[in-house]
């Protein structure tokens, strides 16, 4: 019965009679007749599912809504004249011979008119990890902006960039490696920032994120019991146009959170505070891609542990000259002057070796060649003093790196 009524409906449909939808629209009398028939049939045959008003026509294929996708592959060959100094597996060359530094896969897109999302996956010899994944607001009032997700903490300059793509060296400056490790300072949480309405650029950022960083903090997200178990990070950054093509950025940062020198975490007892100051001076040449830039950061860390306190400072400075579209040369000096202890801090847990006061220095130079905008070959040589800890002796050595990088996919914008 139902099948028969459907067949009847179909047979009586305007399309089956050869009438086009346009013809139907142009002839209201047919519409009236159709409505009358439909009511009559409903009465006679019962209320079966009504036929669709118009045939379902598949939409023509349109542009697909996909995020911007890009991939950066970075490989290195390394040679060390002695064991490389203490470092954690991540994105730096770790051993002699060829190695994958990182495959970075980025997906970026607006979520809606009010939010954009940036997601970066990193594939290293250690496996796959979410390097960053965060959403950023686009339309908050009062010059405010918020970010939420997993991201690099707003501390200093180096810590906020994907250094393999954005810096002129194969490796990390010593203070950043010593204080934040190979993964840099990042975590899951939220950030608020404001651009102050002043005649010059001044931006303030504050973030609360998990303190899982295994070099200065070491408190996993699962151990969090109260708000003070989170890592608080704040930064102020100002920028000045000193001349037509000369820009100076200066910043100050602080990160403060619990550390895992005691287990379980003792509320408020053992914390690490890191303070930083940074500057970036950039002179762009008049009519080319050439520029000269000086970047420097100073960092100071104070960590309390059962029985005492450890303090360490560090500084690095690099000078880079981009000659043209193809060539770049850079030199860098890193210094971790003698750290100090107060009391008899017990540095036994996993954090211990990284909090221990040391001294170390390093100088290095790198030359980069960009055959095109989308690939790069880099040669770097370091002289490293080695780590001297608690009056011990350091073994100096040389480090040699040859690095290759390629970029495919959407063209990412470079932060200044």
């Amino acid at each position, binding site marked *: 019965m139902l099948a028969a009524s459907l067949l009847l409906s179909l047979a009586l449909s305007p399309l089956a009679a050869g009438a086009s939808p346009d013809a139907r629209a142009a002839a209201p009398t047919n519409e009236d007749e159709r409505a009358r028939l439909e009511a009559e049939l409903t009465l006679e045959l019962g209320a079966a599912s009504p036929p669709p008003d118009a045939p379902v026509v598949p939409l023509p294929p349109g542009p697909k809504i996909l995020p911007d996708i890009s991939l950066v592959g970075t490989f290195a060959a390394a040679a060390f004249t002695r064991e490389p100094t203490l470092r954690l597996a991540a994105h730096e060359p770790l051993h002699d011979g060829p190695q994958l530094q990182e495959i970075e896969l980025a997906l970026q897109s607006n979520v809606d008119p009010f939010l954009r999302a940036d997601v970066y996956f990193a594939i290293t010899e250690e496996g796959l990890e979410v390097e960053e994944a965060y959403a950023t607001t686009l339309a908050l009032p009062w010059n405010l*902006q918020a970010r939420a997700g997993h991201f690099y903490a707003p501390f200093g300059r180096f810590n906020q960039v994907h250094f393999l793509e954005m810096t002129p060296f194969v490796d990390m400056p010593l203070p950043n490696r010593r204080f934040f490790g190979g993964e840099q300072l990042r975590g899951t949480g939220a950030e608020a920032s404001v651009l102050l309405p002043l005649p010059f650029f001044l931006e303030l950022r504050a973030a609360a994120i998990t303190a899982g960083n295994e070099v200065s903090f070491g408190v996993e997200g699962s151990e969090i019991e109260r708000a003070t178990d989170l890592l608080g990070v704040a930064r102020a950054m100002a*920028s000045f146009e000193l001349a037509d093509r000369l820009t100076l950025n200066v910043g100050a940062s602080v990160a403060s959170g619990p550390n895992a020198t005691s287990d379980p975490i003792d509320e408020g007892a053992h914390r690490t505070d890191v303070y930083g100051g940074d500057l970036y001076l950039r002179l762009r040449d008049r*009519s080319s891609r050439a520029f000269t830039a000086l970047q420097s950061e100073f960092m100071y860390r104070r960590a309390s542990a059962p029985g005492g306190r450890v303090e360490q400072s560090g500084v690095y400075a690099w000078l880079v000259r981009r000659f043209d579209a193809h060539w770049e040369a850079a030199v860098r000096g890193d210094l971790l002057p003698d750290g100090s202890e107060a009391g008899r801090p017990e540095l036994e847990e996993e954090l211990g070796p990284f909090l221990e006061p040391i001294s170390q220095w390093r100088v290095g130079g790198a030359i980069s060649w960009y055959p095109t905008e989308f690939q790069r070959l880099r040669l770097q040589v370091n002289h490293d003093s080695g780590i001297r800890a608690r009056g011990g002796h350091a073994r100096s050595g040389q480090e040699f790196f040859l690095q290759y990088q390629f970029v495919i996919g959407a063209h990412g914008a470079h932060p*200044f």
Partner: protein
Amino acid sequence: MHSRVFAALLALAASTPAAADVRVVASVPALGSIAREVVGDAGRVDVLAPAEQDPHFADGKPSMILALNRADALLFAGLGLETGWLPTLVTASRNPRIQPGSPGSIEATAMVPLLETGGRADRSLGDVHPGGNPHVWLDPRRARTIALGLAERLAALDTERAAAYRANASRFAAELDRRIEAWEKAMAPYAGRSVVPFHKSLVYLTDWLGLKEVATIEPLPGISPSPSHLAGLILRLRDTSPPPLVVSEPWHNLGTAATVAKKAGARFVRLPGDVGSVPGKDGYVAHLDELLARLRAGWEGK
């Protein structure tokens, strides 16, 4: 005391652009010069990229974020021209008026007919713009369309001054009409002549004037020429009669361009950068006057 400080901070935080002053930010100077004609006395126009630098590779500086933060509208070329520096600035501007899709986000290339569209999105073809060539402003007919289109967009954003934007744009369009006639007359003797630009940045100019772009010094967009490519190019140009004019904007390798011209028996002309790069040639019309005069001088051997 505290309440006074708070009130001052509140006033500071709330200091959005005055209603009397529309703020337009243009990504590149040529678009800025068109915007200035349309905005006139109704507001101010800030330009981000310097006139002497390749618009693909401008530095996205924090000071630009400040300008974007206060903008009512952002006029940009689009099609990926500014993709290396502008998107992060727009996000960091925290300004909902100019975010992609907002009425104040105005893409110049969306207003005009495009050339070189429908190409393959494939980097084996160089740093391509698959949506079309973005260097639209060197064709004054398209500049005219952009001016009129911008006036409509600004009129919708700022209805109080709608008449002023439309009147300014009409005045500029009328001036361009007069100039186009004069420019076409002055350039008519050179129609069909061959030019060899460094990059594919002149396609709209050559299309307008009926010039023939026989090659580019770059083998592919954004790919620097190798000696073997240059040798082949020079041999080709030697067979081109009459000899082509080798031209380049100042941000490309001028030495390479001049050497190619010399070895091919052609003349080399250094083109001005963007609008404002030549002292005293600050406006759109003066800039195009200068550019065309340099081309004519090149052909005349001056």
